């Protein structure tokens, strides 16, 4: 395992009015690793993703990628520093076709592609995520799983170093889930570092090198999937005192 730290989060704090959504969060992500971000509903996982990607501004704390402080930079600058994301509720560009959806990721990255180069790169990427046949279908007309694939394709088009997947595997049927897991594993083999918020245990066990568990905005466990899933504190957070 590579020990170089790609992303480092320290003292991250976010409150919405009186509600503390993220409380002194702290963890590192090593290059090439898949880290699962777990926790019960409302524990602040998506908020952490939004703070890393610049969709929200932190009240306190630091987010550092490869030694570069990106805390509270605007989202487009964070995207330029090598972080791409998908959304919990899938977001495609509905009136644009699949090629254009991918080109959206290609045209404004640090080494942008445009025109014929972008078109052929987009077709190549669509082929890779299994959407080659739908190249000219408007994204809004795709099925749910295909929209998820397309959203991932757009994130990959940005050539990220770190990919944030927010419940990307949620809502898939068993065979789609196997395809999805295989796709994520392939990305890891290509050297991509991934943070995934996920509830699907099969996916967590088979994909994650490490898991960070949150409850009520704070970190309660950090370790391998087996370690954290048997941690009494984690069981209590999910199931209540009587099961711990």
């Amino acid at each position, binding site marked *: 395992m590579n020990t170089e730290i790609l992303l480092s989060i320290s003292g991250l704090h976010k409150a919405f009015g009186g509600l503390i959504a993220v409380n002194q969060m702290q963890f590192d992500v090593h290059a090439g690793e898949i880290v699962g971000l777990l926790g019960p509903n409302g524990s602040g996982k998506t908020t952490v993703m939004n703070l890393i*990607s610049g969709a929200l501004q932190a009240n306190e704390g630091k987010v550092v990628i490869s030694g570069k402080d990106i805390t509270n930079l605007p989202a*487009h600058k964070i995207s330029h520093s090598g972080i791409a994301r998908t959304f919990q509720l899938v*977001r495609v560009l509905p009136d644009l076709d699949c090629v254009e959806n991918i080109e959206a990721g290609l045209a404004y990255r640090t080494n942008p592609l445009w025109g014929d180069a972008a078109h052929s790169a987009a077709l190549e990427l669509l082929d890779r995520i299994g959407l080659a046949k739908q190249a*000219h279908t408007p994204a809004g*007309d795709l099925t749910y799983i295909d929209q998820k694939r397309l959203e991932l394709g757009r994130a990959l088009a940005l050539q990220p170093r770190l990919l944030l997947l927010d419940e990307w595997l949620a809502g898939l049927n068993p065979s789609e889930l196997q395809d999805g897991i295989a796709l994520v594993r392939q990305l890891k083999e290509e050297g991509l570092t991934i943070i995934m918020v996920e509830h699907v245990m099969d996916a967590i066990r088979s994909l994650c090198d490490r898991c960070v568990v949150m409850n009520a905005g704070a970190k309660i466990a950090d370790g391998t999937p087996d370690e954290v899933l048997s941690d009494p504190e984690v069981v209590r957070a999910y199931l209540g005192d009587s099961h711990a």
Partner: protein
Amino acid sequence: MTPFLKPDFIRPVAIGAAIFAALAFLPSLVDSYYMSLAISVVSFAVLATAWSMFSGPTRYISLATVVFFGIGAYTVAVLGEVMAFPLVLLCAGLAGTVVALLVGFSTLRLAGVYFVIFTFGLTELVRQVVSWYEVNVTREMGRYVFLDITQNDIYWQLLALFAVLLLTGFVLGRSRLGFALRIIGEDETVAKHCGIDVTRVKVALFVLSALFMTLTGAIIAPRWTYIDPVIAFNPMLSFQVVIMALLGGPRRLLGPLLGVIPLTLLFEVLTASFPNHFSILLGCVFMVIVYLLPGGVVGLYEKYRAPKKRTLSTDTETTRKSGEKTA
């Protein structure tokens, strides 16, 4: 740049150039009543197309058209006799650009209805500021515009401006900047996460659109001989432009033109026949268009064409979804 040498770029530009060259001979064919009508059509065509260039893809409804139009007209009234007309146009363009930059950076973070209300309020603000200045500083309300510019000159200038606007829009449609604006219109959050500096793109397009509106006001000012703030900053103009663009279809380059031609003629008839009820009739026209043609004439055309094309490639879910969209 190679994209400009491709036949799919050269052909439409050549056809457009030929049409504009032919239109330039209009003054030798028709009398001055029709020339006056032609000036109305072309000026509204510039305003509605410029409006759509920004508001079409972003879906920000701006009611500030007349702010820029009025700034152009007023610049001519103030500077017209001081310097050569091309220089006056340059000054008008600069003034419009500066105001658009200020407005853009301060308001394009506003979303939806707040932006609409702000742009409407801006019209009133600018008109009051100009009135205050005229009353308290120059101590003269209203100005005369006596320039040696004929009706035909105005027509030719507007026609040239429209040609430049269409060419700009056409190039923009194939540029990264134009594509960025479409992405922003689809989903601003996604646009940001794709690496687009959303504020800069929106301001750039807002300024470009405002520049064309300002120049229209400047070019058309000599037609009036007398202007005051109430004439130059009449909010009715902003509404007319929105109605025209929406009737035609603001998401295609030539869409607004399809609304401008019938509505300019309709407004001409209405002002002549019912001068006292014009506002009410304008409101009715607005409602009819929004209820019956939400996508404009272009949208109507696409709606009846698109399902046939799509069912070839996809299943029944497509028709269900497009049904939901139109509902």
